[in-house]
C-alpha cells in the first residue's frame, strides 16, 4: 500500500511537471487591440518561448519585418508607412500612453507625426482628453486610430 501511494504521488508530480511544459498558444490574431506577437508563449519550459526568446526570426529581410504586414493600410493622412506600422504593432501600449497623457509610445507617435517639440505638451493633452474619440470601441483598428488622431489634431 505504501508503495502504491509513493508510485501514484511520484507519477503525479512528474506528470504535472512535464505537463506544465506544454502551454498551448491560444488564438491571437488581428490588427486591433490585444494583438501581441508572442502572447501565450511563455509556459513553464515551453520551447516556443525558447524559440522566440532568442529571436523573432520570421522572414528575415534587411528591411523591418513585423507581425502586422497583413493588416490594412490607412487611406490618407499618412503615406507614412512607419507610423502605420508603429500604431498597428503598439495599439495597446499607445492606448495606455494616450490615456495617461505621457510616455515613450506617445513621444514616438509625436516623432512620427513630426509634432514640433514645443507643441508636444499640448498635443499630448489634446489626445488624452479625446481618448474616447480615438479608441472608440474595443473593435477599433489601427487604421481607425490613425484616422481619429488626425481628426482630433486637425479639429483645432
Amino acid at each position, binding site marked *: 500500500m505504501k508503495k502504491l501511494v*509513493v*508510485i501514484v*504521488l*511520484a507519477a503525479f*508530480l*512528474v506528470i504535472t*511537471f512535464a505537463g*506544465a*511544459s*506544454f*502551454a498551448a498558444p491560444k488564438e*491571437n490574431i488581428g490588427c*486591433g*487591440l490585444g494583438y*501581441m*506577437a*508572442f*502572447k*501565450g508563449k*511563455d509556459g*513553464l*519550459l*515551453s*520551447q516556443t*518561448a*525558447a*524559440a522566440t*526568446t*532568442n*529571436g*523573432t*526570426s*520570421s522572414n528575415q*529581410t*534587411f*528591411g*523591418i519585418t513585423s507581425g502586422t504586414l497583413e493588416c490594412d493600410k490607412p487611406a490618407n493622412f499618412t503615406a507614412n508607412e*512607419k507610423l502605420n*506600422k*508603429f500604431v498597428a*504593432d*503598439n495599439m495597446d*501600449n499607445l492606448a*495606455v500612453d*494616450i490615456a*495617461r*497623457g505621457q510616455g*515613450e*509610445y506617445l513621444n*514616438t507617435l509625436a*516623432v*512620427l507625426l513630426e509634432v514640433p517639440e514645443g507643441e508636444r505638451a499640448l498635443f*499630448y*493633452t489634446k489626445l*488624452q482628453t479625446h*481618448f*474616447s474619440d480615438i*479608441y472608440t470601441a*474595443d*473593435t477599433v483598428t489601427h487604421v481607425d486610430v490613425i484616422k481619429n488622431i488626425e481628426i482630433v489634431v486637425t479639429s483645432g
Partner: protein
Amino acid sequence: MKKSSRRYGWLRKTISPLLFLLHFFVAFPLLAAQVQATDPPYLSTILELAKQKQLYKERYWHILLHYKKGLFGTRSLIDDEAFFLSREGKHNPEAELNATIRGFFQESDDETKHPVCKFIARYTWLKEQLNLDSSQLPVPECKRFTELIDQIKPESVSLIFPTTYVNSPASMFGHTLLIVETASKSKLLAYAINYSAVTQETFGPLFAIKGLFGYYKGYYSILPYYAKIQEYRDVNDRDIWEYPLNLEYEEVIRLLMHTYELNLIYSDYYFFDENCSYQLLFLLDAARPSLGLTDQFNLWVIPVDTVRAAKKSGLITGTFYRPSKSTKIKHIASLVPKAGRKKALSIVRGELKPEILLEQDIPKEEKIWICDLASEYLQYLYAKDEVTQQKYTNLFLSILQARSKLGAMDENEYHIRRPTPPDEGHLSNRLSLGFGIKEKDLFQEIQYRAAYHDLNDNDKGYKEGSQIIFGNVALRYYFPDSNLQLQGLDLIDIVSIAPRDEFFQNISWKVRTGWYRRVLADDRDHLLYRLNPGGGFAYEDRWKGLWYVFMETDLNLGPALEDNYAVGIGGSAGFIGKIADCWKLHLFVRDIYYGLGDTTNSLELALLQNFTITTNTSLTAKISRDLSHGSHQNEASLTFGWFF
C-alpha cells in the same frame, strides 16, 4: 553528404576538417593556377596585388568571414554555402579571397544579387586595400545599400541585455542583441539586430538538447526594437538593460554592412559556444576590428560575459534600465494603500466599474494609481493568457477611458530605482576551497562551478530567488586517510523561487540532476546518481525574506543501493533572508521518504550563511545534520569562494 552532416550536426565539427583535407588535395592543382589565362588584365593585376599583400592573412578578412582557428586548422563558423564564393571558402581564406575578387568582376542583371552588393563589407574593405578602380567593375557600387542607409539614418548602437528567463532553457542566462538608433531619436523605432536559432520545436527540453549539438540553424534578423521590447518586457516579463556603445559613424556603417552580408545566411547554432551572444560579437568586431571580442571566448559563452567583455574593451558608455511588466506593477502597487490595491484588483476582476471609481471620494492621485495599476496588471494577465481577448479589450478600454479623465501626473513617481546592473554582479565561474568536520573526521574540499549563480551567492546583479547551476564538481579529502573522493557532481541544478502575492500567483520549481553522496544502510556514504524535480510556493515577508515550500520527488540510482535504485517523495521548506547587504542566511529542512527500491527516510537540516567579502569573493559557513537509515551525521564547514 550534406544531408547527413546536417543531421549529425555534432559530428560535423569533427569530420569537416578531414573533409577539408580531402578537398585540399583535390583542389590543390586548381589553386596553383589562380590567375587564369582568360582573366581580363585588370583582374589579373588585382589578384596579383592581393597575393603580394597577402590580404587573405589579414585579421579583418578573418573577421568578415568568421574564420577561427580550430584543432584542425582554420574554418569559418558560418555553415551556409551561400556565404562563400569559393567552394573551399569555409576552410580556405585565400581561395575565398580570390573567388571574391573574381566575383566583383562578374557581369550581372540583378545588382542586388551581385557580389559587390551581397558582400558589401568585403567589397568596401578590399576596394580600400587594393585601391580598386570601381569604374572598371560591372557593378561599381551597391545602390541598394546606400538607399537603405538613407532610409535608416543610423546614428548610434546600443548593446541590449534582456535578463535571465528561468522558465525557458534557451534563455536561462539571458540574451543579447544590438540596436541601431536612428536620427529620429526614438529608441522604440531603433532597429534591433538579433541572432537566434530558428526552429519549430515545441518541447522545451528537446529544444535545449538539440541546441547543444548544433541541430538548429541560427540566423541574424532585424526587427523594430519595440517588437523586442514587447517580447521581452511584456510577454516574457524580463528586465531589459541597455548599454550605449561609443561606436563612431563609420563603425556603425561597417556594422550594418556586415549585417547586410549576413542576411539570410545561417550558421549551425550551438547553445554553449556559437550562440546568440557570441555571434553578435562578430558584428562588433567588424565595426571596430581592434576589439577582438570574438577571440576572448572558448568553451562556452554566457551572455552577460559578453557585456562584460564589451565594457572591458571600453565600448560601453552608460547603462539604462527598462523594468519588466511585473517590476512596474510591483512598483505602482507599492505606492497605493492596501484598499487601493484591492480596488485595482476588483476592477480587473470586473467587480468594480472604472467609471464608478471616478465618483468615489478618494484623492485624484490615488485614482490615477489605481487605474494605472489595473491597466498594467490586466495587460500582464492577458500576456500570460489568463483572460480572453474579448474580455481584455473591453475592460482595458474602459479602464483607459476612466484614466484619460484624470489628467497627467508627475512622471517621476513611476521612476523605478535602478538595481545593480547584471554586469556588475559576481563573475560566472567559481572556485571554492573549504575545510570542515563531519562527525569526527576533518576534511578539505575543493569545488569548481562552471556557471553561474546559486541561492546563497550575493544577489547583486542577479534575480533574487533564482539559482542556475551547470557543471558543479566537488572533490573532498578526509584526514588522515588521504583518499581524494568525488563528493558530488551537479550537472544541472536550477531553482526558481518566485514569491506569490495578491497580484502574482507564481509557481516555484526546481530540478536537480547529477551525482551526490548519501548515507546508506551500511552507515557509510555512497555516490549516487539523482534526478530530483519539485514544485511549490514561496512568499516574501516585509523584510524581503523569502519563505518557500516544495513538494519533491527523488530518483536515485547506484550499485550501492538495494536493487540499484530508490524512488522517494517528500518535500522541503526553507527561509532565505538578508541580514545585511553582505550577509545572507539560508535555513532549510528537507525530508524524502524513499518508498521504492532501497527504502528509508532521509531528513536533512541545514543552515548556510554567506558573507560577501568583495564582489568576487565570499565566505560560506554551513552546518547540517542528516538523518538516514536511523543514524545521523553532523557536518560543519567553512568555504572560501572566488568568482572569476
